[in-house]
Protein backbone atom coordinates (compact mmCIF):
# COMPACT_ATOMS: atom_id res chain seq x y z
CA UNK A 1 0.00 0.00 0.00
CA UNK A 2 1.72 3.23 -1.13
CA UNK A 3 1.79 6.34 1.01
CA UNK A 4 -1.11 8.73 0.54
CA UNK A 5 -0.58 11.50 -2.02
CA UNK A 6 0.07 15.05 -0.93
CA UNK A 7 -3.30 16.82 -1.05
CA UNK A 8 -1.66 20.26 -1.35
CA UNK A 9 -3.86 22.69 -3.29
CA UNK A 10 -1.24 23.77 -5.84
CA UNK A 11 -0.65 20.13 -6.80
CA UNK A 12 -4.35 19.34 -7.25
CA UNK A 13 -4.40 21.36 -10.50
CA UNK A 14 -1.73 19.13 -12.03
CA UNK A 15 -2.64 16.12 -14.17
CA UNK A 16 -0.86 13.70 -11.80
CA UNK A 17 -0.62 15.46 -8.44
CA UNK A 18 0.56 12.25 -6.77
CA UNK A 19 3.97 12.68 -8.45
CA UNK A 20 4.94 15.65 -6.29
CA UNK A 21 5.25 16.04 -2.55
CA UNK A 22 5.83 19.24 -0.60
CA UNK A 23 8.57 19.70 1.97
CA UNK A 24 5.88 19.72 4.67
CA UNK A 25 4.44 16.41 3.44
CA UNK A 26 7.90 14.86 3.59
CA UNK A 27 8.65 16.27 7.04
CA UNK A 28 5.34 14.87 8.31
CA UNK A 29 5.91 11.50 6.67
CA UNK A 30 9.38 11.26 8.21
CA UNK A 31 8.06 12.29 11.61
CA UNK A 32 5.46 9.52 11.29
CA UNK A 33 8.28 7.03 10.79
CA UNK A 34 8.11 6.73 7.01
CA UNK A 35 5.23 4.26 7.32
CA UNK A 36 7.40 1.37 8.45
CA UNK A 37 10.00 1.32 5.75
CA UNK A 38 7.65 1.94 2.86
CA UNK A 39 9.17 5.35 2.20
CA UNK A 40 12.70 5.73 0.85
CA UNK A 41 14.08 9.25 0.43
CA UNK A 42 16.80 9.53 -2.22
CA UNK A 43 19.11 12.49 -2.81
CA UNK A 44 20.54 12.92 -6.31
CA UNK A 45 22.80 15.90 -6.99
CA UNK A 46 25.11 17.26 -9.59
CA UNK A 47 27.95 17.50 -7.08
CA UNK A 48 29.00 14.00 -6.06
CA UNK A 49 29.94 15.16 -2.53
CA UNK A 50 27.02 17.44 -1.72
CA UNK A 51 25.03 14.69 0.02
CA UNK A 52 27.96 14.14 2.38
CA UNK A 53 27.90 17.76 3.53
CA UNK A 54 24.43 17.18 4.97
CA UNK A 55 21.29 15.40 3.78
CA UNK A 56 17.69 14.88 4.87
CA UNK A 57 17.74 12.47 7.82
CA UNK A 58 17.40 8.90 6.59
CA UNK A 59 17.98 9.79 2.94
CA UNK A 60 20.24 7.63 0.77
CA UNK A 61 22.33 8.90 -2.12
CA UNK A 62 22.21 7.89 -5.76
CA UNK A 63 24.70 9.52 -8.11
CA UNK A 64 23.52 10.00 -11.67
CA UNK A 65 26.89 9.20 -13.15
CA UNK A 66 28.49 6.54 -10.99
CA UNK A 67 25.26 4.70 -10.09
CA UNK A 68 22.85 5.10 -13.00
CA UNK A 69 25.08 5.26 -16.08
CA UNK A 70 26.62 2.13 -17.49
CA UNK A 71 30.35 2.33 -16.77
CA UNK A 72 31.31 1.41 -20.34
CA UNK A 73 28.62 1.96 -22.94
CA UNK A 74 26.79 5.28 -23.23
CA UNK A 75 23.62 3.85 -21.76
CA UNK A 76 21.91 3.24 -18.45
CA UNK A 77 22.57 0.28 -16.22
CA UNK A 78 20.69 -2.94 -16.94
CA UNK A 79 18.05 -4.74 -14.91
CA UNK A 80 20.57 -6.71 -12.85
CA UNK A 81 22.60 -3.67 -11.89
CA UNK A 82 19.46 -1.69 -11.12
CA UNK A 83 18.15 -4.47 -8.88
CA UNK A 84 21.48 -4.50 -7.00
CA UNK A 85 21.51 -0.71 -6.70
CA UNK A 86 17.90 -0.37 -5.54
CA UNK A 87 18.18 -3.31 -3.11
CA UNK A 88 21.38 -1.94 -1.60
CA UNK A 89 19.59 1.36 -0.93
CA UNK A 90 16.73 -0.38 0.87
CA UNK A 91 14.31 0.13 -2.00
CA UNK A 92 11.71 -2.58 -2.64
CA UNK A 93 9.56 -2.77 -5.74
CA UNK A 94 6.60 -1.42 -3.76
CA UNK A 95 8.52 1.36 -1.95
CA UNK A 96 7.36 4.93 -2.22
CA UNK A 97 10.46 6.80 -3.38
CA UNK A 98 10.82 10.54 -2.86
CA UNK A 99 13.67 12.04 -4.86
CA UNK A 100 15.22 15.42 -4.20
CA UNK A 101 18.40 17.22 -5.16
CA UNK A 102 20.23 20.42 -5.95
CA UNK A 103 19.57 22.88 -8.79
CA UNK A 104 15.75 22.74 -8.76
CA UNK A 105 15.79 18.93 -8.80
CA UNK A 106 17.49 18.84 -12.14
CA UNK A 107 19.40 15.62 -11.34
CA UNK A 108 16.63 14.25 -9.13
CA UNK A 109 14.26 14.47 -12.12
CA UNK A 110 16.87 12.64 -14.19
CA UNK A 111 17.07 9.87 -11.58
CA UNK A 112 13.27 9.73 -11.47
CA UNK A 113 13.21 9.27 -15.23
CA UNK A 114 15.72 6.40 -14.97
CA UNK A 115 13.62 4.75 -12.23
CA UNK A 116 10.67 5.06 -14.59
CA UNK A 117 12.61 3.23 -17.33
CA UNK A 118 12.53 0.29 -14.93
CA UNK A 119 8.83 0.77 -14.30
CA UNK A 120 9.17 1.61 -10.62
CA UNK A 121 5.59 2.51 -9.83
CA UNK A 122 5.65 5.00 -6.99
CA UNK A 123 8.43 7.52 -7.47
CA UNK A 124 7.84 11.18 -6.60
CA UNK A 125 9.75 14.45 -6.57
CA UNK A 126 10.13 16.73 -3.58
CA UNK A 127 8.86 20.05 -4.97
CA UNK A 128 11.63 22.63 -4.56
CA UNK A 129 14.25 20.00 -3.78
CA UNK A 130 17.23 20.37 -1.51
CA UNK A 131 17.39 24.16 -1.61
CA UNK A 132 13.81 24.65 -0.46
CA UNK A 133 14.24 22.15 2.35
CA UNK A 134 17.31 24.08 3.53
CA UNK A 135 15.72 27.53 2.99
CA UNK A 136 12.91 26.49 5.32
CA UNK A 137 15.42 25.64 8.01
CA UNK A 138 14.52 21.97 8.02
CA UNK A 139 16.81 19.35 9.48
CA UNK A 140 19.92 18.11 7.70
CA UNK A 141 22.35 15.56 9.05
CA UNK A 142 25.76 14.18 8.21
CA UNK A 143 24.94 10.96 10.09
CA UNK A 144 25.39 7.96 7.90
CA UNK A 145 22.03 6.45 6.95
CA UNK A 146 21.77 2.85 8.11
CA UNK A 147 20.30 0.81 5.31
CA UNK A 148 18.93 -2.68 5.52
CA UNK A 149 19.48 -4.16 2.09
CA UNK A 150 16.39 -5.71 0.54
CA UNK A 151 15.60 -7.78 -2.52
CA UNK A 152 14.63 -5.84 -5.62
CA UNK A 153 13.45 -7.94 -8.57
CA UNK A 154 15.40 -7.93 -11.82
CA UNK A 155 13.20 -5.94 -14.17
CA UNK A 156 14.38 -5.26 -17.70
CA UNK A 157 14.36 -1.65 -18.74
CA UNK A 158 11.49 -0.62 -20.96
CA UNK A 159 12.89 2.32 -22.91
CA UNK A 160 10.32 2.75 -25.66
CA UNK A 161 7.55 4.67 -23.85
CA UNK A 162 9.70 7.48 -22.43
CA UNK A 163 13.08 7.34 -24.16
CA UNK A 164 13.81 8.43 -27.72
CA UNK A 165 16.88 7.45 -29.72
CA UNK A 166 18.30 9.36 -32.67
CA UNK A 167 16.38 7.21 -35.17
CA UNK A 168 13.17 7.89 -33.23
CA UNK A 169 13.79 11.61 -33.47
CA UNK A 170 14.36 11.38 -37.24
CA UNK A 171 11.04 9.51 -37.51
CA UNK A 172 9.39 12.04 -35.20
CA UNK A 173 9.68 15.05 -37.56
CA UNK A 174 6.29 16.68 -38.00
CA UNK A 175 5.61 16.22 -34.29
CA UNK A 176 6.71 18.74 -31.67
CA UNK A 177 10.19 18.87 -30.19
CA UNK A 178 11.20 20.93 -27.16
CA UNK A 179 14.80 22.09 -26.84
CA UNK A 180 15.44 22.92 -23.18
CA UNK A 181 19.00 24.25 -23.49
CA UNK A 182 20.06 27.86 -23.07
CA UNK A 183 19.27 30.31 -25.91
CA UNK A 184 22.99 30.43 -26.82
CA UNK A 185 23.07 26.67 -27.27
CA UNK A 186 19.80 26.72 -29.25
CA UNK A 187 21.00 29.29 -31.74
CA UNK A 188 24.35 27.58 -32.15
CA UNK A 189 26.41 30.37 -30.64
CA UNK A 190 27.85 27.78 -28.28
CA UNK A 191 27.77 24.01 -27.97
CA UNK A 192 27.80 23.69 -24.19
CA UNK A 193 26.07 25.33 -21.26
CA UNK A 194 27.25 28.77 -20.23
CA UNK A 195 29.94 28.26 -17.57
CA UNK A 196 29.97 24.48 -18.09
CA UNK A 197 32.67 22.26 -19.49
CA UNK A 198 32.95 21.99 -23.21
CA UNK A 199 31.66 18.51 -23.87
CA UNK A 200 32.61 18.39 -27.45
CA UNK A 201 29.74 18.75 -29.89
CA UNK A 202 31.06 19.43 -33.38
CA UNK A 203 28.14 21.56 -34.57
CA UNK A 204 26.03 24.23 -32.93
CA UNK A 205 22.32 24.80 -33.39
CA UNK A 206 19.14 22.82 -32.77
CA UNK A 207 17.03 20.02 -34.24
CA UNK A 208 14.86 21.61 -36.97
CA UNK A 209 11.37 22.66 -35.81
CA UNK A 210 12.24 22.37 -32.09
CA UNK A 211 10.76 25.07 -29.86
CA UNK A 212 13.15 26.69 -27.40
CA UNK A 213 11.91 26.56 -23.80
CA UNK A 214 14.93 26.57 -21.46
CA UNK A 215 14.27 24.04 -18.70
CA UNK A 216 14.59 26.48 -15.79
CA UNK A 217 11.60 28.47 -16.99
CA UNK A 218 9.43 25.66 -15.61
CA UNK A 219 10.80 26.37 -12.13
CA UNK A 220 9.98 29.25 -9.80
CA UNK A 221 12.67 31.15 -7.86
CA UNK A 222 12.37 28.75 -4.92
CA UNK A 223 13.02 25.75 -7.19
CA UNK A 224 9.41 24.49 -7.13
CA UNK A 225 7.55 23.77 -10.34
CA UNK A 226 5.47 26.63 -11.67
CA UNK A 227 1.69 26.36 -11.37
CA UNK A 228 -0.32 24.51 -13.98
CA UNK A 229 -1.51 27.80 -15.44
CA UNK A 230 2.04 29.09 -15.80
CA UNK A 231 3.22 25.81 -17.34
CA UNK A 232 0.37 25.92 -19.84
CA UNK A 233 1.34 29.45 -20.85
CA UNK A 234 4.86 28.20 -21.43
CA UNK A 235 4.30 24.93 -23.26
CA UNK A 236 0.87 25.39 -24.87
CA UNK A 237 0.83 29.10 -25.70
CA UNK A 238 4.51 29.74 -26.27
CA UNK A 239 5.82 26.41 -27.56
CA UNK A 240 2.54 25.63 -29.31
CA UNK A 241 1.92 22.13 -27.93
CA UNK A 242 -1.63 20.86 -28.21
CA UNK A 243 -3.31 18.38 -25.88
CA UNK A 244 -2.64 14.85 -27.10
CA UNK A 245 0.61 15.76 -28.87
CA UNK A 246 3.44 13.25 -29.07
CA UNK A 247 6.43 15.22 -27.71
CA UNK A 248 10.20 14.71 -27.60
CA UNK A 249 12.36 16.83 -25.28
CA UNK A 250 16.13 17.06 -25.42
CA UNK A 251 19.07 19.03 -24.07
CA UNK A 252 22.78 18.21 -24.02
CA UNK A 253 22.92 14.77 -22.38
CA UNK A 254 19.30 14.32 -21.28
CA UNK A 255 19.48 15.65 -17.72
CA UNK A 256 17.87 19.07 -18.05
CA UNK A 257 15.24 17.63 -20.37
CA UNK A 258 14.22 15.12 -17.66
CA UNK A 259 13.02 18.11 -15.65
CA UNK A 260 10.90 19.22 -18.63
CA UNK A 261 9.81 15.65 -19.33
CA UNK A 262 8.42 15.48 -15.79
CA UNK A 263 6.50 18.75 -16.24
CA UNK A 264 4.97 17.66 -19.55
CA UNK A 265 4.20 14.11 -18.52
CA UNK A 266 2.97 14.47 -14.96
CA UNK A 267 2.05 18.09 -14.44
CA UNK A 268 0.41 18.83 -17.81
CA UNK A 269 -0.60 15.24 -18.52
CA UNK A 270 0.81 14.59 -22.00
CA UNK A 271 0.60 10.81 -22.39
CA UNK A 272 3.40 10.43 -24.89
CA UNK A 273 6.51 12.35 -23.92
CA UNK A 274 9.96 10.97 -24.59
CA UNK A 275 13.32 12.22 -23.44
CA UNK A 276 16.02 12.06 -26.11
CA UNK A 277 19.03 11.44 -23.86
CA UNK A 278 21.49 11.27 -26.74
CA UNK A 279 20.59 14.93 -27.06
CA UNK A 280 22.97 17.50 -28.47
CA UNK A 281 26.17 15.64 -27.67
CA UNK A 282 24.92 12.97 -30.08
CA UNK A 283 22.96 15.04 -32.60
CA UNK A 284 25.62 17.75 -32.85
CA UNK A 285 28.20 15.10 -33.75
CA UNK A 286 26.10 12.77 -35.89
CA UNK A 287 26.72 12.45 -39.62
CA UNK A 288 24.08 13.81 -42.01
CA UNK A 289 21.40 14.86 -39.55
CA UNK A 290 19.65 18.16 -40.26
CA UNK A 291 20.49 21.14 -38.05
CA UNK A 292 18.99 24.62 -37.83
CA UNK A 293 21.11 27.55 -36.69
CA UNK A 294 19.78 30.80 -35.29
CA UNK A 295 16.74 31.67 -33.25
CA UNK A 296 14.09 30.49 -35.77
CA UNK A 297 12.68 27.00 -35.28
CA UNK A 298 13.50 26.11 -38.87
CA UNK A 299 11.79 24.18 -41.66
CA UNK A 300 10.77 20.55 -41.58
CA UNK A 301 13.59 18.72 -43.35
CA UNK A 302 12.74 17.84 -46.95
CA UNK A 303 11.46 14.30 -47.41
CA UNK A 304 10.31 13.93 -43.81
Amino acid at each position, binding site marked *: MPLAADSNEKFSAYAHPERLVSTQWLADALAAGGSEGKLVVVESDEDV*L*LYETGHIPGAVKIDWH*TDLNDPDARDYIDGNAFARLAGSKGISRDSTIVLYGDKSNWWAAYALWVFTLFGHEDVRLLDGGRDKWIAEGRELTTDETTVTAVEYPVVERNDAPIRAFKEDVLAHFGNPLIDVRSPEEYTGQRTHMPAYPQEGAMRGGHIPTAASIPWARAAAADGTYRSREELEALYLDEAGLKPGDDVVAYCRIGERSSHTWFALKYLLGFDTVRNYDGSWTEWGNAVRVPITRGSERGELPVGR
Partner: protein
Amino acid sequence: MSISALPTALAEIVDDFQALEERERLQLLLEFSRSLPDLPPRLLDHPQLLEQVVECQTPLFLTVETEVEEGSPVVHLYFKAPQEAPTTRGFAGVLHEGLDGLSAEEILAVPDDMPDLLGLTRAITPLRMRGMSAMLGRIKRQVAAAQRLPAH
Protein backbone atom coordinates in the same frame (compact mmCIF):
# COMPACT_ATOMS: atom_id res chain seq x y z
CA MET B 1 54.47 10.15 -14.17
CA SER B 2 55.43 9.20 -10.65
CA ILE B 3 54.85 10.81 -7.29
CA SER B 4 58.57 11.59 -7.02
CA ALA B 5 58.13 14.27 -9.68
CA LEU B 6 55.85 16.25 -7.34
CA PRO B 7 56.69 18.89 -4.74
CA THR B 8 56.81 17.40 -1.22
CA ALA B 9 53.47 18.68 0.08
CA LEU B 10 51.61 17.60 -3.04
CA ALA B 11 53.34 14.21 -3.04
CA GLU B 12 52.18 13.66 0.55
CA ILE B 13 48.60 14.48 -0.39
CA VAL B 14 48.74 12.07 -3.32
CA ASP B 15 50.16 9.40 -0.98
CA ASP B 16 47.30 9.97 1.44
CA PHE B 17 44.69 9.54 -1.30
CA GLN B 18 46.35 6.45 -2.72
CA ALA B 19 46.52 4.78 0.69
CA LEU B 20 42.73 4.87 0.98
CA GLU B 21 39.86 2.86 -0.43
CA GLU B 22 37.82 4.63 -3.11
CA ARG B 23 34.97 5.51 -0.76
CA GLU B 24 37.33 7.00 1.79
CA ARG B 25 39.05 9.05 -0.89
CA LEU B 26 35.79 10.92 -1.34
CA GLN B 27 35.71 11.60 2.39
CA LEU B 28 39.25 12.96 2.24
CA LEU B 29 38.29 15.22 -0.66
CA LEU B 30 35.39 16.45 1.46
CA GLU B 31 37.85 17.33 4.24
CA PHE B 32 39.91 19.33 1.77
CA SER B 33 36.75 21.17 0.73
CA ARG B 34 36.27 22.20 4.35
CA SER B 35 39.84 23.36 4.85
CA LEU B 36 39.95 25.64 1.81
CA PRO B 37 40.75 29.09 3.26
CA ASP B 38 38.40 32.00 2.62
CA LEU B 39 39.55 34.83 0.40
CA PRO B 40 41.29 37.70 2.17
CA PRO B 41 39.04 40.79 2.35
CA ARG B 42 41.07 42.75 -0.19
CA LEU B 43 40.21 40.10 -2.85
CA LEU B 44 36.66 39.56 -1.62
CA ASP B 45 35.98 43.20 -2.40
CA HIS B 46 37.55 42.94 -5.84
CA PRO B 47 36.15 39.88 -7.59
CA GLN B 48 37.40 41.23 -10.93
CA LEU B 49 40.94 40.33 -9.83
CA LEU B 50 40.01 36.63 -9.96
CA GLU B 51 39.87 34.46 -13.06
CA GLN B 52 36.93 32.10 -13.54
CA VAL B 53 37.70 28.46 -14.29
CA VAL B 54 34.88 27.90 -16.76
CA GLU B 55 35.66 24.20 -17.09
CA CYS B 56 34.36 23.59 -13.57
CA GLN B 57 30.69 22.69 -13.22
CA THR B 58 30.24 25.26 -10.48
CA PRO B 59 31.62 28.78 -10.40
CA LEU B 60 35.22 28.69 -9.28
CA PHE B 61 37.47 31.71 -9.29
CA LEU B 62 41.18 31.82 -8.62
CA THR B 63 44.18 34.06 -8.68
CA VAL B 64 47.88 33.80 -7.85
CA GLU B 65 50.15 36.38 -6.23
CA THR B 66 53.92 36.40 -5.95
CA GLU B 67 55.56 37.70 -2.80
CA VAL B 68 59.14 37.87 -1.68
CA GLU B 69 59.55 35.91 1.52
CA GLU B 70 62.97 35.48 3.18
CA GLY B 71 64.66 36.82 0.09
CA SER B 72 63.03 34.56 -2.48
CA PRO B 73 59.80 34.94 -4.41
CA VAL B 74 57.00 32.48 -3.57
CA VAL B 75 53.54 32.05 -5.05
CA HIS B 76 50.32 32.25 -3.07
CA LEU B 77 47.07 30.86 -4.40
CA TYR B 78 43.58 32.18 -3.72
CA PHE B 79 40.33 30.42 -4.54
CA LYS B 80 36.65 31.24 -4.32
CA ALA B 81 34.03 28.48 -4.65
CA PRO B 82 30.56 28.15 -3.10
CA GLN B 83 29.90 25.84 -0.15
CA GLU B 84 27.31 23.97 -2.25
CA ALA B 85 30.12 22.81 -4.53
CA PRO B 86 32.16 20.54 -2.25
CA THR B 87 33.83 18.61 -5.09
CA THR B 88 35.14 21.77 -6.72
CA ARG B 89 36.16 23.15 -3.32
CA GLY B 90 37.92 19.88 -2.55
CA PHE B 91 40.03 20.11 -5.71
CA ALA B 92 40.88 23.70 -4.87
CA GLY B 93 41.79 22.64 -1.32
CA VAL B 94 44.20 19.97 -2.60
CA LEU B 95 45.92 22.45 -4.90
CA HIS B 96 46.07 25.08 -2.18
CA GLU B 97 47.64 22.80 0.37
CA GLY B 98 49.94 21.20 -2.19
CA LEU B 99 51.17 24.29 -4.00
CA ASP B 100 50.73 27.41 -1.88
CA GLY B 101 54.05 28.97 -0.86
CA LEU B 102 56.14 27.21 -3.51
CA SER B 103 58.33 28.93 -6.07
CA ALA B 104 57.05 29.58 -9.56
CA GLU B 105 59.49 27.00 -10.97
CA GLU B 106 58.21 24.30 -8.61
CA ILE B 107 54.60 24.97 -9.58
CA LEU B 108 55.36 25.06 -13.30
CA ALA B 109 57.10 21.68 -12.99
CA VAL B 110 53.95 19.94 -11.68
CA PRO B 111 52.81 17.52 -14.40
CA ASP B 112 49.51 18.53 -16.03
CA ASP B 113 48.00 15.10 -15.41
CA MET B 114 48.76 15.21 -11.65
CA PRO B 115 45.00 15.08 -10.77
CA ASP B 116 44.86 11.55 -12.20
CA LEU B 117 47.21 10.41 -9.41
CA LEU B 118 44.57 11.03 -6.75
CA GLY B 119 42.73 7.88 -7.83
CA LEU B 120 39.37 9.63 -7.89
CA THR B 121 38.55 9.28 -11.57
CA ARG B 122 36.20 6.33 -11.12
CA ALA B 123 34.40 7.71 -8.08
CA ILE B 124 34.20 11.27 -9.39
CA THR B 125 33.95 10.53 -13.14
CA PRO B 126 36.34 11.83 -15.82
CA LEU B 127 34.00 14.74 -16.59
CA ARG B 128 34.29 16.11 -13.08
CA MET B 129 38.04 15.45 -12.93
CA ARG B 130 38.44 17.71 -15.93
CA GLY B 131 37.58 20.66 -13.69
CA MET B 132 40.59 19.96 -11.51
CA SER B 133 42.96 19.64 -14.48
CA ALA B 134 41.62 22.95 -15.76
CA MET B 135 42.27 24.58 -12.38
CA LEU B 136 45.87 23.39 -12.39
CA GLY B 137 46.29 24.54 -16.00
CA ARG B 138 45.05 28.03 -15.20
CA ILE B 139 47.22 28.28 -12.09
CA LYS B 140 50.29 27.36 -14.14
CA ARG B 141 49.37 29.83 -16.86
CA GLN B 142 48.93 32.65 -14.35
CA VAL B 143 52.21 31.73 -12.63
CA ALA B 144 54.02 31.74 -15.97
CA ALA B 145 52.53 35.13 -16.84
CA ALA B 146 53.47 36.57 -13.43
CA GLN B 147 57.04 35.34 -13.84
CA ARG B 148 57.47 37.68 -16.76
CA LEU B 149 56.66 40.58 -14.45
CA PRO B 150 58.82 41.65 -11.50
CA ALA B 151 57.67 40.28 -8.15
CA HIS B 152 56.04 42.89 -5.94
